[in-house]
């Protein structure tokens, strides 16, 4: 049986311009939790409860199909953070014993244990993360500069392959996750964690995430000039990064031009988001 529903305020769009209240409600409706936050939450749930460890990218891809995965992801940014979560899961699976759950789940809780799966020859999720060679990551470059060691080095890889990340990946991930957790409450501490990452792992597998987070931290600290400089360096270093769209949009909003490393200026071209 249907029940009478009063008209919703957000549907009252007859006035032009709409009233602040209608505008607020329509805006609230149009928002979604960001892909980065969703992925971070998913990773944290896996850390809290091993039963909730998200599936590895390989298992996820095998279960759902690469095309479906990429269509569902939609936003390129999610591709990168999903890979981070996948690597987190892969690393977590190497723990013996696993991290203790902060909140005990009942034994009858459905098991969400990641399926063991061999790494595929080509993982489309990981393959989507590419970075140009021969460019030093911005924060790492800043760090090298501060120590008088600036030199261009070849970035051998930024493709996150859990099978080849080496023994340092866990420490890398811990620093990046720490920075993520601190970003809202203590951006200065987040920046310190990121600087530590840049010092220890200048070309680590999470260099893009580190540099993207450092821009956010600088913005939150009010260091606009530094944030703009970092954002420009990021666009130069990782023109195909999934984070480019968000950073370029912000840079465009600031009214700043993108100044390239070779000194030429050009207007920022915001890349189009991939169509699902």
């Amino acid at each position, binding site marked *: 049986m249907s029940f009478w529903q009063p008209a919703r305020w957000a549907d009252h769009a007859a006035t032009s311009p709409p009233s602040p209240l209608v505008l607020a409600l329509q*805006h609230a*409706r149009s928002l979604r939790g960001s892909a980065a936050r969703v992925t971070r939450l998913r990773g944290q749930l896996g850390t809290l409860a091993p039963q909730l460890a998200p599936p590895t990218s390989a298992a996820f891809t095998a279960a759902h199909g690469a095309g479906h995965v990429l269509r569902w992801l939609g936003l390129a940014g999610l591709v990168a953070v999903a890979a981070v979560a996948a690597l987190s899961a892969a690393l977590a699976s190497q723990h013996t014993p696993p991290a203790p759950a902060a909140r005990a789940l009942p034994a009858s809780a459905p098991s969400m244990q990641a399926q063991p799966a061999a790494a595929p020859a080509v993982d489309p999720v990981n393959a989507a993360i590419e970075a140009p060679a021969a460019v030093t990551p911005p924060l790492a470059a800043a760090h090298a500069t501060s120590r008088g060691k600036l030199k261009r080095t070849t970035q051998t890889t930024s493709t996150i392959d859990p099978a080849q990340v080496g023994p340092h990946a866990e420490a890398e991930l811990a620093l990046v996750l720490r920075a993520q957790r601190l970003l809202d409450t203590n951006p200065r501490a987040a920046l310190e964690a990121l600087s530590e990452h840049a010092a220890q792992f200048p070309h680590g597998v999470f260099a893009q995430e580190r540099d993207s987070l450092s821009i956010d931290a600088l913005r939150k600290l009010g260091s606009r000039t530094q944030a703009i400089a970092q954002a420009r360096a990021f666009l130069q270093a990782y023109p195909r990064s999934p984070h480019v769209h968000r950073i370029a949009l912000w840079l465009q909003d600031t009214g700043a031009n993108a100044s390239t490393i070779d000194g030429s200026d050009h207007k920022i071209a915001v890349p189009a988001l991939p169509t699902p």
Partner: protein
Amino acid sequence: MTSTLAARSSEAPLPPAAGHDPLLLSDMPATDFEALFREMSPYVLRVLPRMGVASADLDDVAQEIFLAVHRGLAGFEGRSQLRTWVYGICIRVCSSYRRRPRHRHEQPAFDSDHEHERVDPGPGPERTLQAQQALRALDRALDALPAPQRAAFVLYEIEALDMRDIAAAMDCSKFTVYARLYAARRHVCAALAGAGHLARHEEGDGR
């Protein structure tokens, strides 16, 4: 095993809030937490700030909700839509959160470009800025409401749930939901400048 819901989720990015496809028990095996998380987490993260959860507490509260969802999923009896059930958990967790003496009282930081994404390109930066300012004013008005009124307002006006679903989520009668919604509307109208014409809309809703 690929569930019906998982397959649907992979084909369509996210359903709209209004007219949302109901998540039915029959659609989803009880073990398919992944599919439920993918489907609902963007909405849970959206609704929490409107329910008064401070930005700094958002991750913790969202974790609490999804751990509760995971715990309860096996025992979900299907007497309501799965989406409604998740919103019900949100209401209870938020209510508990607001009772905690140490929950943060600062105004949630509006950080739409980092923590939220627009599902449409928007009408331009000027209008977006106006909308963000208006949303902050709305949040301030909602802060002064009792939790049940606030939940009724948010679930009806923003999440576009039906009265019946809100009643199920809040475990009360539909008439109680009406009473809470209209009380919240009156307060929001009074609190927000420029909302006078909405009061007239309210009067014209058949009351």
